[in-house]
């Protein structure tokens, strides 16, 4: 399987602050990779670099082999993005927001029925889909974003803290959706604080600290307790430092 997302010695500085330092990482088709780390570890910066929102200070962020910063539209064509807090237009309904996001992706127009089906597949029933987003919970807004991601047939998904603020049921629904997407060949890169969710979902987990990828592990080789202990050790070293 080829790499859909590839970071080659990817670095980003904000003035004197090294937000990301020489990241080497790849995510293949059908693979789920989770980035674990504290706030400011470089997870969101990595995602922003793949989206072309930021220009690397050095190295490359490649999407389907092409640098995202030089060909941002081509990169975004292949990507779907689910931010931590999905912001939608509160005056529009779920289905209207979905249709707008879908139209922006440049994909062929979807009718109302198909749109509702996709939202339903993402876990949002028809009644909810026809309500204004101002009444939505965080999980419901996330489902709109997931439905849009599904509809785009994107090659890769980028998710930033998607489980933050979700109740366990909604988080489980999200996990199921991600597994389903990976099973259909989507490469998934997810930044998270949720160690246990990461272990359940990811094929590889990258632990990030101070902008560096300090360890890349196969979660199947560790149980929950061991993974937690490993993560905490890394974080403790950070505090001691």
């Amino acid at each position, binding site marked *: 399987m080829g790499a859909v997302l590839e970071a080659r010695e990817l670095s980003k500085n904000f003035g004197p602050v090294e937000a990301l330092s020489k990241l080497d990482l790849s995510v293949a088709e059908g693979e789920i990779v989770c980035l674990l780390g504290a706030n400011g570890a470089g997870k969101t910066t990595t995602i*922003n670099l793949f*989206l072309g*929102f*930021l220009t690397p200070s050095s190295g490359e962020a490649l999407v389907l082999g092409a640098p995202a910063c030089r060909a941002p*539209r*081509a990169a*975004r*064509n292949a*990507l*779907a*993005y689910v*931010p931590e*807090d*999905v*912001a*939608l*237009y509160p*005056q*529009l309904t779920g289905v*209207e927001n979905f249709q*707008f*996001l879908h*139209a*922006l*992706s*440049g994909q062929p127009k979807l009718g109302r029925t198909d749109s509702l089906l996709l939202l339903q597949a993402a876990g949002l029933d028809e009644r909810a889909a026809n309500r204004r987003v101002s009444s939505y919970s965080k999980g419901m807004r996330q489902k709109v*974003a997931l439905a849009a991601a599904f509809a*785009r047939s994107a090659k890769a998904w*980028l998710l930033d803290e998607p489980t933050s603020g979700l109740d366990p049921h909604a988080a489980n629904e999200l996990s199921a959706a991600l597994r389903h997407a990976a099973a259909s060949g989507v490469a998934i890169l997810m930044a998270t604080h949720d160690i246990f969710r990461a272990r359940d979902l990811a094929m590889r987990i990258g632990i990030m600290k101070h902008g560096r990828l300090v360890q890349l592990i196969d979660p199947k080789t560790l149980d929950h307790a061991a993974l937690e202990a490993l993560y905490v050790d890394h974080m403790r070293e950070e505090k001691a430092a």
Partner: protein
Amino acid sequence: MFATIIRQDLRLLSRDGLALAVLAALLAALVFAVMSAREIAGAHAAGLAQEEARIWQRQAELEEPVGPTQIRRPATLEPSPLSVLSLGRTRLDPAQAEVSFFSRLDLMFRDYQIASPFALRAGAFDLSFVVIVIAPLLMIALGAGMVLSDRDSARLRMMMASPASPATILLARSLLRASIVVVPVFAAAIIAAHLSDRAPPLADLALWTGGALIYLALWQGLIAFANTLRVRADAASVGLIAVWAIWIFLIPAVTSATAAALHPPPSRAGLVADLRAAEARGRESAPEDLIRFMHDHPELQAQGDADIADWMRSNAMIRMRVEAALRDPAQEFETALQSQDAIARLAEFATPALAANRALADAAGTGEARHRAFRRQAQAFKADLQGMLTDAALSARSLTRADADAAARFAMDESAVPRNASSMWFWLAIAALLFAWTARRASRITPI
């Protein structure tokens, strides 16, 4: 993509209380502006027509022999059909004079100064006012956050994580939101122009709408540009409103105060006193002046009643003396007002509000230039008519009806009205540069 963004934005706006309030406010302002200006322009035109009719009626009733002093002509600045769009100086400057042998330059235009002082001070609520003052505010309300609010609320992340170009989003929204204001304004202008009693000259209507379009396009360019800056939507709103206040109020206020202080016109009270002194001196010296005059013009021996001839000649002597005394002060007035105007013209390059105000009034035929040209032409007509009547008047010779009918009639030479729209071209160039710069910046918008 473009159409999609416009459709979605239209849907958004249709559910946005602020946008609906903006549209309602605009429509109310347009309806009121058209009604109000139509009423005022109509009353003004009716008054001028009534006076013209009275003068011509009296001329029609003349019986032979016709005394030269009985011949009167109206000099009227024809009301422009487009005055309903911009009232300009309609109720401020004189638009009519009854010209006769007795007309005196300083008293040619009198007794017209009774328009409501409150209405004059507040200013007309016409389409010009809506375009120049109100429309930009409404455009700011609609457009200040058209992309910035998406950035503030992080929606821009979701939108830009797609292949859609931020420039396309900005352009589509700009076009739609500007149209919400521009289309009703133009519709109101065209409707108002066609409601006028006379067919509007299409060239002038095109100039008026073109000037309004340049002005509103400039504002939309500025608003679009503000949306490419890395600021919060409320900061952009504050900045745009500050620009509005500076362009609409501060620069014009400082300009007029400075111009009046640097180039104050001569004292009107002093002029009145000087002319009255000249008139009194003229009355005193009329007998000597008359002797000198008759010595120079022996051909004007009295052919009719000698007393009447003497009286007319005295009258003419006094008039000439007063008008001679008026020459220098009139020139000083003209110089002072031209100097003030030069400052105002410079200021038009600092604020598009002044440029648009002049351009719209000039296109509507109610600007300073046309009124000034009318006064000059009316004064020249007076000189012509009096020249024609002088021989007969000073020799008390009677005229026939044919002579009376053949006497000159005033016709305004509109081609002599100067139009200088250089400041509007300047602002058109600024608008174009603004759009170009915005397009360049828009392609680099990031949600971070």
